[in-house]
């Protein structure tokens, strides 16, 4: 092909669909969407203001190559994992997983929306849980409450104090966790090694896929 033809061909090449297929988990399902709208209509989060693009629109935007709009969209982060869309999809597209896959990819390459509450929760939860192999509830709550400053954190803490005391009484919350004590898993090193290995395998798999494309 001549250079001019090549340029023309490139203009029509949808690199973003390919990028999602290769990089985002379950991204290969995007092309299976037939735009019926059953996923969006079944989504309970669309009653909330944070819902910019329903799943089927995200799928269409990916095919249309709207990279910036998709990656910076808050929609994937609004998914509550209720799996309504997943079980109903006439094409058996695992919509829930695809949305999570795109969200994770957007975060990984630093394009996810900043200060998105679900994203903040996910990150905080992950760091907290992987540190000792078990969730430190006190520290997790603290880091979430104080996200928007000390004043807001104290206010929120006071609002929730009855719930917290109830949890302590029922033995569901250990106040000593605030000092870094409380429950841990038996083999913290093992957990860390396991996670490191998983990351290594993931990188290997993605690398191989890239070469193949």
């Amino acid at each position, binding site marked *: 092909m001549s250079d001019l033809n090549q340029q023309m061909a490139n203009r029509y090449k949808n690199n973003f669909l390919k990028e999602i297929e290769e990089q985002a988990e379950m991204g290969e399902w995007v092309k299976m969407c037939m*735009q*019926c*709208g059953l996923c969006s*209509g079944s989504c309970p989060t*669309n009653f909330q203001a944070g819902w910019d693009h329903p799943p089927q629109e995200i799928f269409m935007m990916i095919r249309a190559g709207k990279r910036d709009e998709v990656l910076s969209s808050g929609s994937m982060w609004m998914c509550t994992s209720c799996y309504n869309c997943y079980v*109903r*999809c*006439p094409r058996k597209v695992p919509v829930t997983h695809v949305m999570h896959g795109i969200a994770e990819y957007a975060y990984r390459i630093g394009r996810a929306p900043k200060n998105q509450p679900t994203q903040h929760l996910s990150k905080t939860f992950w760091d907290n849980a992987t540190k000792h192999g078990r969730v430190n509830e006190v520290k997790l709550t603290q880091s979430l409450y104080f996200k928007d400053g000390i004043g807001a954190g104290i206010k929120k803490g006071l609002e929730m104090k009855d719930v917290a005391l109830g949890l302590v009484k029922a033995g569901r919350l250990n106040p000593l966790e605030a000092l870094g004590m409380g429950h841990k898993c038996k083999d913290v090193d093992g957990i860390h090694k396991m996670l490191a290995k998983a990351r290594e395998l993931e990188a290997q798999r993605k690398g191989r896929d890239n070469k193949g494309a």
Partner: protein
Amino acid sequence: MTSVVATNQTILVVGGGISGMTAALEAAETGKQVVLVEKNPYLGGRTVQLYRYFPKMCHPTCGLEINLRRLKANPRIQVLTLAEVTGIRGGRGNYSVSVKLKPRYVNENCTACGECGKAVETEIADAFNYNLGKIKAAYLPSNMAYPQRYVIDASIIGTPDAERAKAACKYGAVDLDDKEEVITLNAGAIVWATGWKPYDAEKIVYYGYGRFPNVVTNVEFERLADPHGPTGGRILRPSDGKEAKNVAFIQCAGSRDENHLRHCSRFCCMGSLKQTHYVQEAYGDAGKSTIYYIDIRAIDRFEDFYQKVKANPNVRFVKSKVARITEDKDGNPVCNGVDVEGYKRYATAHDLVVLALGMEPSVKGVDIPAEVMSDSSGFVMADPANAGIFGAGCATNALDVNRAVQSATAAALRAIQVVNKVARAEA
């Protein structure tokens, strides 16, 4: 005992709907002996339960009448109604078939005068009208029923009602001692034309069929529009009998869905486009239709029909598969979903919602008493290893009437070739 003359040069046709009738007639008109077996007490199958056909909007009774004339004029066809094939043994060119005959309790003397129906008090669900109404337990299935003979429902046998029917009959046609029997007959080739059934709407839980009275199916809507139907042809909604002037049609209700029917049922888009005519016909400009669709599949020559409906200002098209039906305080069904053209959420109330149900082969889940291959949707496929049994019509694929007739003619030709071979071998 019912006596049937059949040899290994006879063609057995299983199913007396439009496909089975066509296959039987085509074969018989070439000079072959045919036995036509039908499970219902009448011929015509689901075709006679339609109000009108697309694309010409003519009445199925017309086409049926032509076929019945051909049938009555042809001495080579033996018709068995209330009959089911229960077993097939043997092979191509030499089958032995058991057929179970259910009692009709009414013999050939019947003139369809209707006196037994007047005498009987018990009412049963009206199966011909998809159970939308009730009929007497001594009944003629439909005005066009062939054979034109009453049926006495087995549920009243042994009750005083049965005796009343017998007493009312001036012709000695009521035979309460009629018994179920199983007969065996020979056949050289078999045409399997058992047709289809509408997909079970209650399985599509989010559409609320069975919970909301004003959600009906496409086959029920045919009966609502038919002057011989339960409402006398007035399109009234079931909950309160109000005139349904704002009707929603939901396409792909069950079809093209891995959780329900994998295949596109092909006829339902045209069916709904046709049914918008019924609404228009009944209420003029006050009759509004809304079609919710994924994409309209008005296959090949029917594109023109679609374009005409599209040009009608009283028909609205919404590109979206409805995700959920709810009911408002007035009992109106409300369609909820997201419109693909603009991705806007909608919640639109209608007087009546019609689910354009897909076609499920009647043979699916039924133990076909012979080794016949079926595809992933349950439709019968041609099996070269067993090439004396041929599928026809909707038993083989989701087809409209026109295509079912073509398929049946093709099956008849294949069956004729088999019995011709048998005849040559024996000559």
